[in-house]
C-alpha cells in the first residue's frame, strides 16, 4: 500500500501506450524500463539518449525498442544537442517535448553541459535516472553513489559524499525541479505531467535501484525503491515556484514514522559488512538532508 494522497492513480488514467516497447533488452528488474514507461504521458516526445544503460535498452539495429523518435548522442553532449533541437523546433514552430534521458554517469561527465542548458533555461525536460553508479560499464562509483557503497572502483566502500544533484540543479533558478522514484510511478507520472505544462528547463532526478549494481534480487526493484523512501534515505520533493516535500515522502518528515534504515541497507549487497558506526553515520547524513529540505520547504512556501 502506497502512502499519501496524490500518488494514487486510477488504472484508466495510466498511459495506454508505452513508448518503450515490450521485448526490449533491459535487464530483469531494470528500473529504467519502469521509469521509461512514464514518458508515455508526454505529447510529441523526442528522446535524446547519451551513452548509458538506455543506449542498450533502445535496441539493436535494425530493431528499435522505442516507438518515438530517438537520437543517440555522445556521453557529455545530451543537454547541448537537446538545446539545438529546441532552437530549431522553436524557429519552425514545431510542437515537441524534448526529453533527455540520462544516467548519473552522463550527468557526471556532462555536468557542465547540463548546467549550461539549465542556465540558458532551454525548453527541455531532463530526467536523470540515477542508479547510483556507472552500471553500464560494470558498477563503478559515481558522484551520486552513496557513502560506503561498494562498487568496482570503491571495493572497500565509497569514501566520498553523495552529491545532491537535484538541489544543485534547483539552484540554477530553473522553473521546475523534482525528485522521483521508480517505486512510486504515479508520483513520477504526475511530476512529468506538471513539468510538461511548464516552459523552460525542467529537471527530474529519478531514483532507480539497480538489481545487479546494488546486488539484490531482480524481483525487488520496486520494493527497494519504496524502502529508500520509507526509510527517508531518498526524499521526494518538487519545486515549481514553491518547494514541497511530495506525498510519498510526507509521512516521513516525522523521523519516528520512518522504517528503520537497516531494513533498506540489509537488502543490498553493496552495503554488506557495514559497521554499526557506519550505519549510524548514514542515519545522521539522512537526518541532515531532511533538515536541509525542510528548511527549503519553509523558505519557498
Amino acid at each position, binding site marked *: 500500500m502506497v502512502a499519501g494522497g496524490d500518488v494514487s492513480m486510477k488504472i484508466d488514467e495510466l498511459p495506454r501506450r508505452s513508448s518503450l516497447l515490450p521485448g526490449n533488452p533491459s535487464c530483469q528488474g531494470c528500473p529504467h524500463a519502469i521509469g521509461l514507461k512514464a514518458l508515455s504521458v508526454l505529447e510529441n516526445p523526442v528522446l535524446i539518449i547519451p551513452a548509458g544503460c538506455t543506449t542498450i535498452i533502445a535496441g*539493436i539495429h535494425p530493431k528499435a525498442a522505442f516507438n518515438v*523518435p*530517438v537520437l543517440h548522442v555522445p556521453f557529455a*553532449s545530451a543537454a*547541448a*544537442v537537446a538545446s539545438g*533541437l529546441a532552437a530549431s523546433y522553436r*524557429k*519552425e514552430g514545431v510542437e515537441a517535448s524534448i526529453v533527455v534521458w540520462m544516467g548519473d554517469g552522463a550527468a557526471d561527465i556532462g555536468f557542465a*553541459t547540463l548546467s549550461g542548458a539549465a542556465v540558458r533555461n532551454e525548453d527541455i525536460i531532463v530526467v536523470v535516472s540515477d542508479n547510483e553508479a556507472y552500471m553500464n560499464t560494470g558498477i563503478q562509483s559515481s558522484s551520486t553513489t552513496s557513502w560506503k557503497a561498494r562498487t568496482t572502483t570503491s571495493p572497500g566502500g565509497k569514501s566520498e559524499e553523495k552529491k545532491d544533484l537535484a538541489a544543485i540543479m534547483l539552484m540554477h533558478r530553473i522553473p521546475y525541479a523534482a525528485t522521483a522514484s521508480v517505486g512510486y510511478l504515479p508520483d513520477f507520472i504526475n511530476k512529468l505531467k506538471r513539468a510538461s505544462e511548464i516552459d523552460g528547463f525542467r529537471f527530474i532526478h529519478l531514483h532507480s535501484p539497480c538489481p545487479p549494481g546494488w546486488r539484490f534480487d531482480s524481483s525487488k526493484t520496486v520494493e527497494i525503491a519504496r524502502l529508500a523512501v520509507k526509510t527517508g534515505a531518498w526524499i521526494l520533493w518538487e519545486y515549481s515556484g514553491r518547494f514541497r516535500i511530495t506525498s510519498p515522502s510526507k509521512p516521513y518528515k516525522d523521523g519516528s514514522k520512518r522504517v528503520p534504515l537497516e531494513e533498506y541497507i540489509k537488502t543490498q549487497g553493496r552495503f554488506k559488512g557495514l559497521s554499526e558506526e557506519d550505519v549510524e553515520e548514514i542515519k545522521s547524513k539522512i537526518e541532515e538532508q531532511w533538515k536541509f529540505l525542510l528548511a527549503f520547504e519553509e523558505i519557498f512556501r
Partner: protein
Amino acid sequence: MRTLLTGNYAVAEAVKLSRARVIAAYPITPQTTIVEKLAEMVEKKEIDAEFIRVESEHSALAAVYGSAVAGLRSFTATSSHGLLYMYEMVWWVANARVPLVMAVVTRTIGPPWNIHTDHTDLLTMRDSGWIISMAENVQEAFDLTVQGFRISEEAGLPFTVGMDAFQLSHTAEVVDLPSQQDVDAWLPERRQPYRIEPEDPVTVGCIGPNEYTAKLRCNMAREMEKAKELVNRVDEEFGKSFGRRYGGLVEEYRLEDADYAVVMTGAWSGDAKDAIDMLRKEKLRVGMLRLRYFRPFPQKELRKLLEEKEVLVVDRDFSMGHMGILGIEVSSAIGDITNVIAGIGGVDVGVDDFKMMFRKFADKKLRKIEWWPEEMFL
C-alpha cells in the same frame, strides 16, 4: 558591393547571406569576432537565426548537431584548443552524416600558450569525415563559407572552412559582397539525409551489428570520393554566378611550365606567389599548386599537375615522429618530395624567406625535411 572586411567578419557575412538559422559557438581567440558579429546580427534581427550561448566548444558542436538534425542550416566556429575540446563531436557529426558548416581559424596548440597561426589544429580533423577547405584570402574565406553550405548539404557531410589566425581573421581586405538576392538564387533550399521530428519514430545512432558500422563507413568514403567532383562543379557554378573561380580542389599558379613546384596552403601562399613572380624574373621556373582542400584529397590532380617536376611541400604543421602533414599527404600521391617546416606557432615567414627557400630548393641545398629558417633551430 565592394567593402572592407576582416576574415572573421567576412565569414559572419557569409553565414548571414547563407541564411543560417541556428548558430552556437563558444569564444576563443582568434575566432571570437565571428561569434560576436553573429550574436550582434541576431540581436539586431539582421539575420533570422537563434544564437545559443553555449558553455563550451563540445556543446557548441553538439548544439548545432541538434539543430541541424532537426532540419535547419546551422553554423559554428572555433580554433585550436576549442577544436580539440570538441573533437569527440567532430567525429560524431561526420559519422552521423549531418550537413553543417564550421569555420576553423587556425591557431597553434599549446603549451606554450600562443594564439598565432599554424595548421596543426585544422589537420587533426583529417580522418574524421569532414570536407576540409583552407582559404588564402578574405574573399576566399567568404566564398568557401557560402559554397560550404551547398557542398555539405549535397554531400551529406559536414564542411569546414579553414583560415589563418590574424593574417586573415583580423586583417581587413576589400571583399566583393554579393547581394542577398544573388546568394538566394545560387544557394538551394537545405536538404539532408534525415531529420529528427516529433511523431516520426526514427532512431539515429543506435547500436548495430558490426557490419552496419562497416557499411556506413564505406558509404561515407564513397560519398567523400564523389565530393571531389562536387567541389569542382560548385567552384565552376559559383564562378558563373559571381565571377570568381579558384580551380576547385587545387589552384594552379604559374605551374604549367614550372620545373619546380611548391605545394602549400593558407594565407602565406600569397607571399609565396609574390616570391614566385620575383624568381620568374630571374628566370627560375617555379610554380605553385595550392591545396584548397585537404579532404577530399586531390591525388589525381597532384599526379597530373606535378608530373616531372621537382616538388617542395611547405608545411605549417608537423606530425611528430614523421614529417610535415602535407608532406605525408603529397608523398602518398606522388612519392619523393622535399619538405620544409616553417611558420610553426605563427613565426613570420615573408616573401624574402620564400625567395630564399625556393632558390635553395632549386640549388638542391635543402635537406629532405628542413625546419625553416635553419639558424633558428641551431
